[in-house]
């Protein structure tokens, strides 16, 4: 929902970033306000995933120019964990497996770390269990998921649902979903989308990075951005995504 007067959550200006000495982002501008849903689309190698990792602070990427402001704070001076505690969440394209660490233990530690940050009470395991039993309904997960090691032996769809479960527990201000739809069958896509939609409010925002228009049928964007060659080359509404689906990306690349 677009409201021009709502609060700016994220403001990125002329962002340049490189990995291994190669410049990938070559001047990205993006403004995200509370209550908005953005989609960033583009071909492989256009810089979409790099953009999300740079915002989250992945150590492999170096910011070489430009700025990003998150709720009035300079984002790039913050450590990755500080960005997370400030309310920036990244749902990973390839969620990692953490052998030996149970899902519930991870979620409780992450949740209590945030509670501390916000000056709120930590939850003990029993109190947290009450909370988590509600949250897993959002992603239609079985309680047995909580006792399993994080992502270990999970199917592709289960891993992505697990990411959304983490989002549901942490309730971030800004969630970046990095190709959350890739590798999902239609049922899992429906569950994940429903989960994300139920978490949307006037106080938070979502940026979806995706190849396909399909996801946008379920989570309807206010803005669609097309990324190419490390820049956003076109911004439109959801109609732009449909046009991309029909015509591909080449016409935009020529134009750019």
């Amino acid at each position: 929902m677009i409201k021009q007067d709502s609060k700016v959550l994220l403001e990125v200006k002329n962002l340049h970033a490189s990995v291994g000495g190669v410049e990938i982002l070559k001047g990205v501008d993006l403004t995200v306000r509370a209550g908005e849903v953005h989609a960033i689309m583009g071909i492989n190698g256009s810089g979409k995933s790099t953009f999300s990792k740079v915002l989250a602070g992945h150590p492999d990427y170096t910011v070489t120019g430009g700025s990003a402001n998150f709720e009035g704070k300079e984002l790039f001076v913050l450590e990755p964990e500080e960005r997370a505690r400030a309310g920036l969440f990244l749902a990973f394209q390839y969620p990692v497996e953490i052998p030996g660490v149970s899902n519930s233990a991870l979620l409780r530690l992450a949740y209590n770390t945030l509670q501390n940050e916000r000056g709120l009470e930590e939850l003990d395991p029993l109190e947290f269990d009450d909370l988590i039993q509600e949250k897993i309904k959002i992603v239609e997960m079985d309680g047995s998921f909580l006792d399993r090691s994080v992502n270990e032996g999970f199917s592709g769809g289960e891993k992505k649902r697990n990411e959304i479960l983490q989002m549901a527990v942490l309730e971030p201000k800004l969630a970046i979903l990095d190709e959350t739809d890739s590798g999902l069958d239609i049922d899992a896509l429906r569950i994940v989308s429903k989960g994300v939609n139920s978490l949307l409010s006037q106080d938070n925002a979502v940026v979806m990075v995706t190849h396909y228009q399909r996801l946008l049928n379920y989570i309807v964007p206010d803005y669609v951005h097309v990324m190419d060659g490390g820049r956003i080359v076109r911004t439109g509404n959801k109609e732009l995504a449909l046009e991309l689906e029909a015509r591909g990306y080449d016409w935009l690349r020529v134009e750019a």
Partner: protein
Amino acid sequence: MSAALQNLVNQPYKHGFVTDIETEAVPKGLSEDVIRMISNKKEEPEWLLEFRLEAYRHWLTMEEPAWANVAHPTIDFQDIIYFAQPKPKKQLSSLDEVDPELRRTFDKLGVPLHEQKLMTGVAVDVIFDSVSVTTTYKAKLAEIGIIFCSFSEAVHEHPELVKQYLGSVVPSGDNFYAALNSAVFTDGSFCFIPKGIKCPMDLSTYFRINTEGSGQFERTLIIAEESSSVCYLEGCTAPQFDTNQLHAAVVELIALDNADIKYSTVQNWYAGDENGVGGIYNFVTKRGLCKGVNSKISWTQVETGSAITWKYPSCILLGDNSIGEFYSVALTNHLQQADTGTKMIHLGRNTRSKIISKGISAGRSSNSYRGLVKVSSRAAGARNYSQCDSMLIGGRCEASTFPTIDVQNTSATIEHEASTSKIGEDQMFFFAQRGIDSEEAISMIINGFCKDVFVHLPMEFAVEATKLLGLKLEGSVG
């Protein structure tokens, strides 16, 4: 490894201080004269001197073993001080008489030497360099017939027991380092649990090597008579020196019919610095004999220190239905090397053994599990379950597994499982992205990985082990 992570790895060694106490050392080097001098200083009976000399003569004929997956410069056995004891030596009747400097050392180490011991219920026998300083709780334990004292004291007070059992599990010529130990051992702990007695408290020793260039050769002998049980804790630290120190101990456990011995170690010898300079060479022979029917010996170890760890706490399952267990966490970082594991020798019928080994390698370290499960032809119905898991942290460390299974009886059941996992920058970034800092992330990963072993540690050791592993690994990922 990124710079930030590097910094976190380089946690200084907390126990690296030298206690400035005058020590009385015999000259460097080894000869029959040195052995006679040690034996004489300790006012030992003739038979023990003969035991030492026989071991020494055997040792002279032996070659230093080279089969372990570790590398180190040749050890000059003539460049080691074989006996060092704090001076002046006098009979101590209470803790107040212990040298205040020594007391401060123990305070720094966190050894519970005074009032808090009463609350923790731990009896401590402290081995400082080679002399047992004091054995607490002795009188209380003596009331129910338990003997817990320094090895030297046992030699004088209970020579018949020492003579009967010394070398009965690890013969003096068993291996190169056991022979060396048998020739020059200076002190250690002795523990005897009489028939039918369940030791009411955990017994604990604390080893510490203080003199630069000294070797520590202690000897531990634990005997559990019929239907008795005991839980024994061993903690180890050493100060920081640039030279390597040799620690070649021998531990012998004997369990008679229906007896139960649980032996736990948290080992934090100085591991050398980040460039591999200094640190302890920990070449130890630990072996338990389940001599009686239904007896049980359980080893639990958390190995975090030493430049080189080379040991295989083992069980000889002689009595029918006897049980051997080995639970181990071995962590190596920087340039540490560990070649550790166990041997389960099934001789009796329906004997059972269980091996849970967790190896964690970080930095440029090398960590090997080496195990032997042997079932003899008469060990009908023997069972073994082995699980060996390795975790690699970062991209420059090494983990190896060398399991050997030798089964001579077709009714035996042997299971072996192994796994390898890797913790890298991606996992750490995931934790960071969920707001969790690297210290907590590592501690969570390690606790998860090691929980099958930690549950077997006594409570206070489990807490210490968790902290120790976290400290040793801080920032080693990336």
